[in-house]
């Protein structure tokens, strides 16, 4: 059963092109750094040293080197950068998972049941999508109070329609395929139909959405932290580091430059890989 695919297999190159490879390496490296943060970071990210405030990269104190300089409280920028990767990736991962699962289930249900369920869900999708997500996120976090959980909930709340729309469209096109009808006639329940027969066939398109959304979530999280609406200090986050760095552009360029660079590389890598996966799954381009 599992071997029956809906589309005819087309020949694909299995190698990753050289333009994508270095960015895949960057992504893997950032993931490893985030997971192994306590082992990789040279110092504790929250230890302050008021004698080593705003020192340039390469500054040495107490036998320690501040490779990327120190911030306004004398904390090591490199260590905060490493711990900040955790926040970025964790928030993005959690909100993509949450919104992805919710949106997929809702979208599949809309396509499967049709009728008023479909109308209700898909109109709600249209409505949520027509409001800029960052505005909704700003007001909701401002009201509920900034915290890790609230940021994840708000980001998921505003982004699930993207998955719902794709899951809906894909399910509609798969639901009438002969193999789905056949298993329906053979008495398969709706849960089995959706999970065993439809989901595996629409997963590809959803993965593409999830990849591109992941990059967006990283940017949203950083944006909220930048506005002071993200994970709260002293927890290191790239957006908050950038906000601090903005106040010291004239005197300490390194505080804003490195978290921004990290953010840029992370998002660029994700977008490139997402584009690559999309081209691979649908060579005609959309």
């Amino acid at each position, binding site marked *: 059963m599992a071997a029956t695919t809906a589309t005819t297999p087309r020949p694909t190159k299995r190698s990753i092109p050289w*333009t994508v490879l270095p960015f895949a390496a960057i992504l893997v490296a950032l993931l490893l750094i985030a997971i192994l943060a306590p082992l990789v970071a040279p110092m504790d990210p929250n230890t302050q040293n008021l004698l080593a405030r705003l020192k340039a990269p390469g500054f040495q104190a107490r036998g320690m080197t501040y490779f990327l300089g120190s911030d306004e409280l004398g904390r090591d920028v490199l260590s905060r950068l490493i711990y900040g990767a955790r926040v970025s990736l964790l928030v993005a991962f959690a909100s993509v998972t949450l919104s992805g699962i919710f949106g997929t289930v809702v979208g599949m249900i809309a396509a499967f049941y049709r009728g008023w369920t479909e*109308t209700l869900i898909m*109109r709600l999708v*249209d*409505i949520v999508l*027509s*409001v*800029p*997500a*960052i*505005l*909704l996120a*700003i*007001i*909701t976090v*401002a*009201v*509920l109070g900034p915290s890790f959980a609230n940021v994840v909930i708000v980001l998921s709340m505003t982004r699930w329609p993207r998955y719902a729309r794709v899951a809906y469209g894909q399910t509609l096109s798969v639901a009438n395929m002969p193999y789905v009808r056949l298993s329906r006639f053979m008495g398969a329940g709706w849960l089995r139909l959706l999970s065993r027969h439809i989901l595996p066939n629409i997963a590809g398109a959803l993965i593409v959405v999830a990849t591109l959304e992941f*990059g967006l979530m990283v*940017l949203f999280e*950083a*944006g909220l932290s*930048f*506005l*002071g*609406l993200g994970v709260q200090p002293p927890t290191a986050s790239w*957006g908050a580091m*950038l*906000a601090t*760095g*903005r106040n010291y*552009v*004239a005197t300490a*360029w390194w505080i*804003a*430059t490195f*978290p*921004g*660079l990290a*953010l*840029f590389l992370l*998002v*660029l890598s*994700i*977008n*490139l890989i997402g*584009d690559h996966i999309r081209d691979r799954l649908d060579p005609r*381009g959309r």
Partner: protein
Amino acid sequence: MQAGRILGLPPKPETEFPVPAFFLKRIFQAFIAILGVVTLIFFLQRMTGDPVLLLVPQNATREDIEAMRSALGFDRPLITQYWDYLSGILLLDFGRSYVQNEPVWTLIASRLPYTLMLAGGALTVAFGLGIPLGVTMAVRRGRAEAKAMMGLVLAGQSMPTFWSAILMIMVFAVWLGWLPPSGARDWQSLIMPSIVLGLLSMATFARVSRTAVLDELEKDYVRTGRAKGLPMLRIVMRHLLRNAAIPVVTVAALEIANLLAGAVIVETVFAWPGLGQLTVQAISARDFMLVQGVVLLGATTAIVLNLIADILYSLIDPRIRMEGSA
């Protein structure tokens, strides 16, 4: 179709040109969306707890608080407050900012011109860079320069605005001293914020115009032009761009909404006195009436622009209508 039924209009046969029904349906949907946003904002605000406690001085007595509560109307049933809020909005009455002690609409109106200026500047940058990039990428498809440009577009898309903003301040204001780092003193202050905000939409315009031009390049008139010996540049400028402009214009409507949302961060970095900065100041002062007013305005603008984009597109390309009403 459905909106027609709700409004009591007779159902039209499917074969007839279903323009009014589609438009009515979309307008009705936009109206519901705006109502949904208003409701969400209203109840979110009431969920935070007692707004009166934020307004009274620290040493206020219980009687003072109660007096304030009834003076501001917070002692009435929630549904009455909601109804008043809704009917006020219809008359552009967004309530009063209790922190700044001014009508919300006055505060918004004083900042609106700055945000419009910034959005205009950003849109100019986005169009001016994005369209030539997109057209070149399509015409030179597969060549090295097109690939390099695609890289540029991807980089622009992945660049967080708050970082590019800080980098520009560092280079052009602090090191070179060419441009003012922040504020809104003269026209030069507008340059950096416009570029930063525009770069994000530039990527979208480049991608859309690339796809649009690629679609047009396959058409017969382009081949005829080539066969006649016309130079490619002339074909593109005289014939192709007009046809490819349709999807680009529609996307422009949607991008304006994104620009307004992006302005929140860009205005904060550059201390540009527009609506975005007002929002951030209102959030930190816990001035919820004001936050609610700005977000409502932003969301409504976005929904209306969405509606315009849809209607524009359906006028130009009737197939969209069929999909929409299926």
